[in-house]
């Protein structure tokens, strides 16, 4: 399969055209999207116009940018002007944003070609895409299995070869978990590195946009385009990041890698085995492996399921039928609000709105939301302490490989547990990456997770590149 690097190189050098690449992408999508349900919407006209513009720039002897002609799938919770943005929900029925997310603007400016919007769990709440109002996506490695979620459509779009790159969003593992399930590189940047302007909020203090790619170097390439300070996002960090592409070639000699028990315990035996093999690859490349435990990480799930729903309950209040999206008419405004929200939201979204509303209510705030924030601080402090001893942490991305449709729908807790290993990073605001590292006996992909201290995401690319090379041997 072609990488973004290859496509951009060929388009920039005139060996192929952006239009040609795009039509190949559309052809692949036409062949299998109905089965896999990766894309909810294809922007044929917009994409062809963007590709033609790239080709014109090349023809004029100029450089269209580092992602010249690279077709990209955009998770359908990122705003694109004039293009339906559903968030996988009926409540946004008919809404077309009048503006474009910063990350998409930056992709376009770098010559990339957004081809359409990818499927997701409703408002990014879920781990399988089974919560999408428009049906689940299917895992191309085994169509009876889920692709993971919430950014499942973006993962499938790359894993099925529709596009070399897609964007997802990661609030508690929504990029890394589907990347692991679909055999891809999935990267969640440090909080504040990538602008959230135009990302429809689920949990503002946890959400972060990041890429799905087939190689670690492609993840670096895309992140260097979409990352960096954005004055439209007050939580956006100042610039001053290390060169992620350069980090891919730096190796791991002398790097201290913490093999973290709490990111392994409870995982399938063959996943644990793969993580140990990954550690061995790093050791062979000159890294020092340190066994350690950070028991506080176990508290992450409980804290997350108070903080994320609390923020969501407020972020999702605006879907009230007054200004955009679905409206179910009633005699007065309050009844219209209730009828619209009842009809427009799915069961999981309602569950989290209720959880969050409860956690913030007078008399319960201290016991729930307040306590969760303290726990969040505890986890961050514990990770900071660990990073005094090691440079990165290594563990599993998920406790299991991709599960079957319906396996966890009836039991929300078992579904929530699939994010056990990914959640602590979001709570701490750090970066993390899932790198594919072989398959299970049944042939399903397994992901290894690398965690780094905040704003030292360059280390993820050092380690990721070595693992990628190691597993290929």
């Amino acid at each position: 399969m072609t990488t973004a690097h290859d496509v951009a190189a060929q388009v920039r050098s005139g060996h192929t055209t952006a239009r040609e690449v795009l039509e190949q992408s559309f052809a692949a999508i036409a062949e299998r999207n109905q089965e896999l349900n990766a894309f909810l919407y294809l922007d044929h006209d917009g994409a062809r116009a963007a590709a033609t513009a790239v080709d014109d720039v090349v023809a004029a002897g100029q450089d269209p940018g580092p992602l010249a002609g690279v077709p990209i799938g955009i998770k359908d919770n990122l705003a694109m002007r004039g293009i339906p943005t559903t968030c996988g929900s009926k409540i946004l029925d008919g809404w077309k944003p009048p503006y474009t997310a910063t990350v998409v603007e930056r992709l376009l400016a770098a010559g990339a070609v957004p081809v359409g919007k990818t499927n997701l769990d409703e408002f990014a709440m879920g781990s399988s895409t089974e919560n999408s109002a428009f049906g689940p996506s299917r895992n191309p490695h085994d169509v009876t299995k889920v692709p993971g979620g919430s950014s499942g459509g973006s993962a499938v779009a790359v894993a099925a070869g529709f596009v070399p790159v897609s964007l997802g969003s990661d609030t508690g593992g929504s990029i890394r978990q589907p990347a692991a399930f679909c055999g891809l590189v999935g990267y969640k940047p440090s909080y504040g590195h990538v602008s959230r302007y135009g990302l429809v909020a689920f949990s503002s203090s946890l959400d972060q946009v990041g890429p799905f790619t087939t190689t670690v170097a492609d993840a670096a390439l895309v992140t260097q385009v979409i990352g960096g300070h954005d004055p439209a996002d007050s939580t956006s960090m100042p610039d001053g990041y290390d060169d992620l592409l350069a980090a891919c070639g730096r190796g791991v000699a002398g790097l201290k890698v913490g093999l973290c028990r709490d990111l392994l315990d409870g995982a399938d035996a063959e996943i644990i085995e793969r993580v140990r093999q990954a550690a061995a690859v790093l050791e062979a490349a000159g890294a020092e492996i340190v066994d350690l435990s950070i028991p506080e990480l176990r508290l992450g799930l409980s804290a997350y399921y108070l903080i994320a729903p609390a923020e969501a309950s407020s972020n999702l209040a605006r879907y009230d039928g007054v200004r955009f999206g679905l409206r179910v008419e009633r005699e007065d405004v309050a009844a219209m609000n209730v009828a619209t929200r009842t009809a427009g939201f799915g069961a999981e979204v309602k569950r989290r709105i209720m959880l969050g509303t409860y956690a913030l209510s007078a008399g319960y705030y201290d016991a729930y939301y307040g306590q969760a924030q303290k726990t969040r601080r505890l986890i961050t402090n514990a990770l900071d302490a660990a990073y005094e001893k090691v440079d990165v942490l290594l563990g599993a991305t998920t406790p299991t490989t991709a599960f079957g449709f319906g396996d966890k729908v009836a039991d929300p807790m078992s579904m929530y547990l699939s994010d056990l290993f990914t959640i602590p990073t979001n709570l701490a605001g750090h970066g993390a990456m899932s790198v594919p590292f072989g398959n299970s006996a049944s042939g399903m992909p397994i992901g290894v997770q690398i965690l780094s201290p905040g704003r030292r995401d360059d280390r993820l690319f050092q380690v990721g590149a070595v693992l990628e090379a190691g597993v290929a041997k």
Partner: protein
Amino acid sequence: MSMAGYETIIGLEVHCELKTETKLFCGCRNAFGDEPNTNVCPVCVGLPGSLPVLNQKAVEFAIRIGLALNCEVKWSNFHRKNYFYPDMPKDFQISQYDLPLNEHGTIELPDGTVVGITRAHMEEDTGKSTHLGGSGRIHGADASLIDYNRSGVPLVEIVSEPDMRSGVQARAYVAELRAILVAVGATDGRMEEGSMRVDANVSVRKPGDPFGTRCEIKNLNSLRSLQRAIEYEALRQVDCIEAGERIVQETRHWDEAAGRTGSMRSKEEANDYRYFPEPDLVPLAPSAAWIEEIRSALPALPKARRQVLVGLIGNDDQATLDLIATVVDRDLDALVVEAASAGAPAQLAVTRAANELNAEGVLPSAKSFATTCQMEASGALSATQAKAVLAALSETPDADPKAIAASLGFEQLSEDTLSTTVDEVISANGDEWARFAGGDDKLAQFFIGKVMAATKGKANGKAVISLLNERRSG
């Protein structure tokens, strides 16, 4: 209805719209009266994916307000106040909660009373609803129209301690607060346009008792409404208590036409706002250096400006203080001070500025104003003539008052001419003169009238009286 044996306890919440160019969290124009829904963008209509970015100018204005109210300016943050209402696009308001920007201030009223300021915090305004049909309120309306031009306009909410004891005092507080807010340039202070909105918390008690149960009165759009509403509400509460009823803590609406407050209770009011820190913004932590920079650039405040005029006049009787307050409120004090230094008598300049000058219109130059006052003081112009000259100066602010007086036919009568005219009038009215000379002072007006008629209004009334008195005593 009587307040006998009771005192009224009043605390006020004043929402002040800041006079910034743009809104609090986006770049939309902050303007009153534009075509509805023209100053809007994804941020201020709360579209999915939009994010707020704090307007630094609004913070500067809010700090100016805090400093002018003697507050501590502190490390603070924003919270979300969650409730559903159609004119609030995100269905939460970005406000401040337990960590407001300004706390623990004071205002000294002109009568010397010191009112505590609990806090002065920042928040965003909502859109403006117009309910069609029914009573004009949302309940029972046929349809509602919403203008989001106001959505996201920066506000500072100034909360007082319950330190006021009468409607008159509450009115004085709002007048003084308004004068301060206008003086620091934070707002235009136009209550009728809603750029200052007042809610009053009112309770009554017998002196020495603990505070009674309070009611909050909304929709107070003028100083007059404020005073009337508080006086009405206090009497209503006393009547309730005297009738053996309990006061119910509630929000009440002031009906200006009916002159009464009415209950606004409805089920929507049982709100739990679920405040939590706004995760889309970072803490608001103004540096000490910035605060000092703002403090050192603060203009003179109304109290100090009034004291300058009191010093010039050397008189602080109530009538003079009222005139001085009017002059400072209308921003005319600088003109008066300048005119006084150009030789105008200060007392006369303050009186004429308070009563004759239109602060909204064109003002005379300080020199012309000073000359006019001097001419009046010396008797060259009568009071009526001086007012006419000032009115003419509003057309041509730099014109020479002497030339205006001449063009209006106000050339001064020579002392000889006036003296001769007075003598002629006396001889023509012997009976009246005899009575005046005998001590009937009321006849002075009769003679002034006659002299005015004879001189076609050019005589100075004071000069006539002094000539009459000379003749009488001589």
